[in-house]
């Protein structure tokens, strides 16, 4: 346990030193405050708009940003240390592979979690003082929780990438493709399936397919509770056949645990 903490502490401080925490927090804070105040500018209004519009716009931006940030933060975690020779050295220490991996996960995960909490939390507090509506706190808690899980999920996925390749540049390439597939291509494919193939897929079938993408689960969590007028695309269909929030959060947690377990498995079999 002490070993895990030592590694986590080092990774967390790396995140502070590289200004990752500050940058991510700033991006999230600007984004959420901006959207909170100017989200309705397109419809000619200014100032705080409805809660559902704000959360909907935040969710649709966060779903692109968070996976990208998580992948950027962690894609070189292992392949980078392998290239510089410190991975071999660390493994000659009284430190197991799972301890090293979990330590890194806790350290880098804390950076993402803390940035999400502070960044989005700031606008939640701001909004709460303006509207004094308790619904804000519950909606934002759910949003922040699911955003953290989304970030952790992509951190675990980037470990899979980092452990499977032998060069840093390859890991960067794979990270980009992964982001493209999960954040963009998957949804387009679903939409194509929905529109292009008549009676091709039922509502339940669509929702089940969406469980294959953590980004879509995140969307479902945050949009399911809102007016469907703020939601469009494949999601609007899925929402009607939606699973409960608890089930969705469980599915998202599984998207953290499964890649992480798989990463430990790959690490243990990795040839050094």
């Amino acid at each position, binding site marked *: 346990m002490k*070993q895990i903490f*030592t*590694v986590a502490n*080092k990774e967390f401080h*790396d995140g502070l*030193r*590289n200004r990752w925490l500050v940058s991510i927090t700033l991006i999230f804070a600007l984004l959420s405050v901006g959207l909170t105040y100017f989200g309705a500018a397109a419809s000619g209004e200014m100032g705080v708009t409805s809660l559902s519009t704000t959360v909907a716009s935040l969710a649709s931006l966060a779903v692109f940003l968070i996976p990208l940030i998580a992948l950027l933060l962690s894609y070189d975690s292992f392949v980078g240390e392998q290239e*510089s*020779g*410190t991975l*071999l*050295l*660390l*493994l*000659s*220490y*009284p*430190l197991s592979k799972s301890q090293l991996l979990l330590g890194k996960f806790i350290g880098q995960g804390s950076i993402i979690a803390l940035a999400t909490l502070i960044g989005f939390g700031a606008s939640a507090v701001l909004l709460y003082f303006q509207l004094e509506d308790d619904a804000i706190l519950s909606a934002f808690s759910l949003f922040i929780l699911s955003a953290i899980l989304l970030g952790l999920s992509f951190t675990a996925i980037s470990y899979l990438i980092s452990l499977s390749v032998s060069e840093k540049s390859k890991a960067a390439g794979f990270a980009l493709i992964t982001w493209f597939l999960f954040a963009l291509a998957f949804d387009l494919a679903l939409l194509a399936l929905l529109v292009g193939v008549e009676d091709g897929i039922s509502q339940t079938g669509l929702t089940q397919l969406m469980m294959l993408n953590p980004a879509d689960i995140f969307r479902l969590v945050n949009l399911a509770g809102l007016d469907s007028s703020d939601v469009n695309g494949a999601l609007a269909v899925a929402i009607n056949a939606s699973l409960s929030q608890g089930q969705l959060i469980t599915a998202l947690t599984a998207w953290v645990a499964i890649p992480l377990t798989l990463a430990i498995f790959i690490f243990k079999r990795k*040839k*050094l």
Partner: protein
Amino acid sequence: MTTPIVSLTDAGKSYNKLDALQSVTMTLGEGEVLGLFGHNGAGKTTMMKLILGVISPSRGQVAVMGMAPDSKEAWHSRTKIGYLPENVSFYEQLTGLEVLTYFAKLKGFNKKQAIDLLEQVGITHAMKRQVKTYSKGMRQRLGLAQAFIGEPKLLLLDEPTVGLDPIATGDFYRTVDQLKSQGSSVILCSHVLPGVEQHIDRAMILSSGQLLAMGSLSELRQQAALPVQIKAHGLNGAMANHEHLAHFISPTCSQTLNVPEAEKISVLKTLLGFEHIEDVHVESANLEQVYQHYLALHAQQLQAKGQN
């Protein structure tokens, strides 16, 4: 007899069909310094990884302090093993002290020990600076400090003197001698370097995963039967006319005699009998020559095998 610190019994490692290390049997006792020599890809690093327990042997047994190093029981003895990898660049953005503190903590020590070690390798003045500003020699010293954490019972050093200036190299060998006198065992892995000979008890020569020779330097010299070079000055061709000495004369230099170890004394006696002799210089084959000899022998054997 005490149990050896390291023992390999027919241990080998293969990757797919490639033998990175063929069956090797060796032991390393307490307080012994072993030099491990070979070209790149000879299997030196593979052997070190086997001893460290980072990889498991494909065949045979490896035991370090009586346990298989890749097993769970060996976990605690890892604290007593120091390792300097061949190519390591430490976390560039951290300071030297932060790097060493991190590694010290992983071995159960603290910042104070890290500071002491930095002082021991002589980079205290730079410990608050980021590693990316370090010279090659300073990085190597930091790596050595890392390997010395916790006064290890067993040290595995891969190319320890690369990048060190002569003074730092001297310091390094003094530290090795000191650790040896404290009972630590050391495996020095290197290309053959001048100056290493006085500090090792035994040498091991590897080539393409095969153990070519192992033993103390004098044993290896004897096995190789390399001639002793004797240079005599002031004789002006008298050697060439002497019936006994003439056939020892080196083909490349008429002042030099290549004499088999067994005949050394008799040749010297003869030389000292000459009236005009001014100076005699006797040089036994050095490690590099022994090393070259075994490599050449190995190449010849391979060729002979190919022809059959």
